[in-house]
């Protein structure tokens, strides 16, 4: 049985798709057969970030409607043969998704995948609801900024009350916090919430902090998940997150300000 992970946030533009692509690639690279599904029907993006937009034939909605089989719609990743992408439909809207249809696809995928990563659309409406409904684990992507934190809190409320696990009184969804676009310099200046501030408000297990990084935009434009850029800080941060999720002990990085050469020499630590 596969473990179903939803990458969600409530707010848009915080890095859900970047995170979904990186996490899915990271899990596959560690030897786990992984599928990543774009739930953002009508605003398809994941295929671009994964660099497979030119190989999309069938999509998620085609499979739900029985117009294509799952194997026809799944796209194998160029970089890792254990990773598959199920793209969203660009010509439909979120009403094309049905609970039974989504449930059936996830059930079928569960049979021969280890992890299924669901890239949720923004908002709390149908698309976002169906993306999280069947989840076992939730990665809540949050920016260190008040409106993003509040939207994440709202999403956490829905995860604990409107999901399959909540409705069937099963063990609740495991929730993890991913703080993205973090800039220790701006936290120090007082114009960004700190890790501690966000954790205080959300009281959630911190899986990792992704620093604000030029590498993310470069990777997105190139269609290569940023986790494959092993030299970049964001790439390393995502690798740490995948490691921690799989149970490895890894100290948190990228929370404190980078020290310059003089800081390193005279910083004392």
């Amino acid at each position, binding site marked *: 049985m596969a473990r179903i992970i939803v990458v969600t946030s409530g707010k848009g533009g915080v890095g859900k798709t970047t995170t979904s692509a990186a996490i899915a690639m990271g899990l596959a690279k560690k030897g786990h057969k992984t599928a990543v599904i774009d739930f953002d029907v009508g605003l398809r993006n994941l295929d671009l970030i994964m660099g497979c937009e030119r190989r999309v034939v069938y999509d998620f909605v085609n499979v739900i409607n029985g117009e294509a089989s799952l194997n026809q719609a799944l796209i194998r990743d160029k970089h890792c043969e254990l990773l598959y992408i199920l793209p969203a439909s660009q010509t439909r809207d979120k009403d094309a998704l049905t609970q039974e249809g989504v449930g059936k696809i996830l059930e079928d995928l569960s049979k021969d995948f280890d992890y299924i990563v669901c890239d949720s659309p923004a908002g709390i409406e149908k698309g976002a609801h169906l993306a999280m409904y069947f989840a076992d684990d939730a990665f809540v992507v949050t920016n260190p900024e008040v409106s993003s934190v*509040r939207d994440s*809190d*709202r999403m*956490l*409320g829905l995860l604990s*009350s409107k999901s399959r696990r909540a409705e069937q009184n099963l063990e609740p969804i495991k929730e993890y916090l991913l703080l993205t676009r973090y800039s220790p310099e701006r936290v120090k200046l007082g114009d960004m919430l700190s890790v501690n501030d966000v954790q*205080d*408000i959300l*009281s959630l297990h911190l899986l990792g902090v992704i620093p604000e990084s030029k590498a993310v935009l470069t990777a997105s434009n190139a269609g290569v998940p940023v986790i494959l850029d092993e030299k970049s800080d964001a790439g390393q941060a995502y690798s740490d997150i995948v490691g921690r999720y799989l149970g490895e002990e890894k100290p948190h990085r990228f929370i404190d300000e980078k020290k310059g050469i003089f800081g390193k020499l005279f910083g004392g630590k």
Partner: protein
Amino acid sequence: MPTEPKKSVNNTTTLEFKSSTFSVPVLVLSTNDLEQIEGQLKNKIQLSPEFFKNTPVVFDLQLLNSLNLAIDIKQLTEILRYLHLLPIGIYGGNKEQIQDALDLHIPIYSNHTNVSASSRKAKPDATSVSETRAANPTTIIKHPVRSGQRIYAHGDLIITAQVSAGAEIMAEGNIHIYNTLRGRALAGVQGDSNACIFCFDLQAELISIAGHYKISEDLSETVRNKPIQIYLEENSLIIKDII
């Protein structure tokens, strides 16, 4: 073509009468001024419109009749229905009122069981709320109450996790929060002015006891971010340190 009712194999299980106890709000009237009643009801309902919507209610006319104040049951019922309350019974009415109620298909509750109880009490209107509250068990919540979630407790409410901004917690009795309160907390929502709120870290958006409320902006800096108790004294909210 009329459908023939399916014959049950076992006739004894088609239906059965069971006795069950429900907790229903009782509206105790102390005036027969219908305009005043309507105004006050509206104010109460505004505090938690969702709770009051389509809620069943029994009117208690004992106090009114002991003061010899006559009230028009038909008009009273109209007001309640207009405010989306559902009258399901009258209690302590006189002959005329009982007949009016029956005409409106509102059931009559006999009052001999509670006559002795109410005559024993010095302040029947104040105690009736606390009594119903005592009968309701305490609700305990151990998970965080997130933004957008609502909790309603018929008795006391104890929360050991945090209450986020944008969450709403309501109790007919007291509210205890052994964590941070950032959302809205309303105690004594059925009018119990003896209800209290306790919290470990006050950062609330709104606090209210029996309809007397304060919004975040009105909270002084001296009571924020620390353990606090809130109670009602002479119709004003008192907010002070627990110790």
